[in-house]
């Protein structure tokens, strides 16, 4: 432990700071160690259960795809909703429906 400041009171303060620092370092080390343990266990599981791992990746990709699609859909729906509100405020007649697509 280093006591850089002069006088007994300053040395005491540095001592408290260094104790707090070492305690927080211990906490960080413990968190990192548990994260490393979880990561290594995940890798072990993925290497022994390859099909299950592939399924998990596929489902997670599907989840991300759905979330992104939800976001874009909501943005489009909000634009239409805002337009509808503006139209009602302006007291215009309802927008004509688009013509039905011809069947092949």
């Amino acid at each position: 432990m280093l006591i850089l400041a002069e006088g007994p009171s300053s040395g005491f303060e540095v001592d408290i700071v260094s104790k707090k620092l070492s305690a927080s370092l211990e906490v960080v080390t413990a968190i990192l160690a548990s994260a490393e343990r979880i990561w290594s266990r995940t890798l072990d599981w993925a290497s022994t259960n390859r099909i299950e791992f592939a399924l998990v990746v596929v489902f997670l990709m599907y989840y991300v795809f759905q979330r992104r699609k939800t976001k874009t859909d909501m943005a489009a729906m909000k634009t239409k909703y805002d337009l509808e509100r503006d139209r009602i405020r302006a007291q215009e007649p309802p927008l004509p429906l688009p013509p039905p697509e011809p069947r092949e």
Partner: protein
Amino acid sequence: MSLPFVPVIVAALLGVIALADRRLKAAAQPLRFQLAEKGEEYLRHPHASKETKEHVGFLLDSAFGMRGPLLFAVVAIPVIAMIFVVHPRSILRSSVRLNTLEPTVRTAFLEICRLHDRITLANNWLLLPLVELEIVLFMPFAIVLRSLIRGRVPETGGRDSVLSYIEWRQTQLMPKHSHAVANSR
């Protein structure tokens, strides 16, 4: 069930939940148009009060997102229950505001609130039931305590008045809604 399948089931459930969420949000769109029509009509109503117009302005603006107010409600409902026992005037005010409205205006306002509730359920299908569960758990005790203290059973304190109070508080917190109301006049 063997352990290796648990992550697969969890990931599959996430996918199903994401799909269901998207479908629900899309299914609420016709109701949003109804809300826009009835809400904007209400904002033009000459006999509607300023406070209810602000409330409707908030409902119109939050047709796509009520997550913040609902998260606030999850934390605030136990506090609201305590306020209801000790000092219920602020919560009672919402019902007093409604009672002063003309019957046709009140019906229109309640219809808008019902539409918004349904849209909120589609948008936040997990959070709204959680909030309602909290209301069911806390508010009956608050009503009973209040009745014991004051010697009179209060008329309000139900689901609608609590949700209306939370929405009203959010209206007070968000100044942008007043612009929506002002523009619509």
